[in-house]
């Protein structure tokens, strides 16, 4: 009798323990998926178009923080808090059904960008109050947010880079205005290194586009490609493309898949080349289907479905070059904090200028220093330089 009651008691204890453990997991905050909190932040974000324009101008350095922006940031504090909490969560699953390939619906990337601008405006307000640690912390949160946004699709990747670039612009601005603080600079350096270790290469976007396009190239989807005008096909070859599509059969699909695979293989190989060569080769490869289609129906589906990899590659390099300059600048600020003066030459082992693959050209001036690119952005025909001021 005693044994039976002991057994029962043990069972009750086990069940209670199990319940305690499971309920604590259910109600744990933050949840194990950052996307849930970002979506909640989007839900709470409220802005009039005029304010959004103001935030865009603030991020471009056209205006300074004003009372309207301060009020707006205060009113959206809940959205900021959700996004900041989310950025601290490692796992981020946006809930996208990638099995749908090209029909996958992407999350509200434009709202993510606005949300990032809101947090960065808050960072600027913090910096104005001389709370530089909190200001930089917010910028770093936005960089983690950018990592979360930068998913495997080319578009999400580009949005992630754009958000990250804006955060780096704000860090550049804060560094120019904050007093020397070796501890904070070292902390910033480590945080940036941690963030960089989680970024992924552009090749993953090409793999994703490849999978999506191959699964799309089936007979049932061919009819959906008409009318051809919807696919931004160059007008000079649209009639030819339409002609090939109307005559499509299984043989056509198989040869189109083979053409696509070969081209994608060549595109991936170019990414290992230095920027100028890679850009020229990518441009040539992306224009190839337009030339081939006149005589070769195998190029039809590639012409229609190929994303603008040449364009996005340049945007990607541009998007990563400012962060590289900021990381190099942090090292220079550290030298200044340690020695009391700016170095005469650029320290070795710093992140390079991605347009040339070489270290930035370093120049001191009256306000601080400039990191100049050695290579040209071939898509914009421009050489960039990044100015870093030092507080006197």
């Amino acid at each position, binding site marked *: 009798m005693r044994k039976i009651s002991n057994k029962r008691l043990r069972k009750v204890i086990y069940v209670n323990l199990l319940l305690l453990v499971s309920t604590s997991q259910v109600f744990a905050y933050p949840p194990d998926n950052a996307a849930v909190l970002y979506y909640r932040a989007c839900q709470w974000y409220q802005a009039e178009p005029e304010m959004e324009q103001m935030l865009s101008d603030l991020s471009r350095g056209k205006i300074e923080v004003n009372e309207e922006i301060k009020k707006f940031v205060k009113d959206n504090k809940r959205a900021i808090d959700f996004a900041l909490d989310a950025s601290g969560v490692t796992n981020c699953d946006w809930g996208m059904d990638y099995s749908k390939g*090209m029909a996958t619906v992407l999350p509200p990337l434009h709202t993510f960008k606005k949300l990032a601008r809101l947090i960065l405006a808050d960072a600027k307000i913090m910096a104005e109050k001389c709370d530089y640690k909190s200001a930089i912390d917010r910028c770093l949160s936005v960089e983690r947010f950018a990592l979360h946004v930068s998913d495997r699709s*080319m578009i999400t990747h580009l949005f992630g880079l754009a958000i990250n670039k804006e955060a780096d612009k704000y860090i550049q601005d804060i560094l120019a205005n904050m007093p020397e603080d070796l501890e904070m600079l070292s902390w910033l350096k480590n945080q940036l290194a941690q963030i960089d270790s989680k970024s992924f290469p552009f090749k993953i976007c090409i793999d994703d586009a490849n999978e999506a396009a191959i699964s799309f190239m089936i007979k049932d989807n061919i009819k959906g490609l008409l009318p051809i005008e919807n696919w931004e096909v160059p007008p000079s070859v649209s009639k030819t493309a339409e002609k090939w599509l109307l005559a499509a059969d299984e043989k056509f699909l198989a040869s189109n898949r083979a053409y696509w695979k070969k081209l994608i293989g060549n595109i991936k190989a170019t990414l290992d080349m230095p920027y100028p060569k890679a850009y020229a080769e990518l441009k040539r490869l992306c224009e190839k289907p337009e030339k081939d289609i006149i005589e070769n129906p195998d190029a039809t589906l590639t012409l229609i479905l190929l994303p603008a990899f040449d364009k996005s590659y340049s945007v990607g390099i541009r998007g990563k070059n400012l962060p590289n300059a900021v990381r190099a600048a942090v090292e220079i600020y550290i030298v200044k904090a340690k020695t009391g003066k700016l170095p005469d030459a650029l320290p070795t082992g710093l992140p390079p200028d991605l347009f040339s693959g070489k270290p930035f050209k370093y120049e001191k001036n009256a306000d601080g220093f400039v990191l100049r690119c050695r290579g040209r952005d071939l898509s914009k025909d421009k050489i960039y330089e990044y100015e870093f001021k030092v507080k006197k």
Partner: protein
Amino acid sequence: MSMKKDEKWLDELISRTINSGKPEFDVEKWKQKYPEEFQMLRSMAKQDSHTHQPSIWRTVRRSPFTKLAAAAVIIIAIGFFIAHQRPSEQAETTTVSKVTKSLTEILTVASLNIAYRKGGLEAVEAQFEKAFYKRKPQPTSISAQELLEDFNG
């Protein structure tokens, strides 16, 4: 009124007027006396029997069940016609929807890739704005009273 009914009515009227019992009609005598009229009547009778013969078609046509069945057949035929037309109509709808795409359609990887090819990230952002602009605007704030009204229906 039919001819047979006319005859009956006339016989009755005559017998009532004369009051002399039922009149007897000698057919053979009348035939001999009025051969032309007899021939005419005969031809008329032939014609009448021919025209008044209850044909199957007429029976079928006059039956309410047949009318119902015919209506059903017409409805089914129209249904089949519409069902048969649907695929081509769907194709037309797809074509139209490509031009005026739905909210989810313009936010797909394929659609955003096209927008990017056209105008870079700005065009992609514009596409997002367009898609979300179509959504019903959410109220910026809600009072406690409005909330209670919502709960109470």
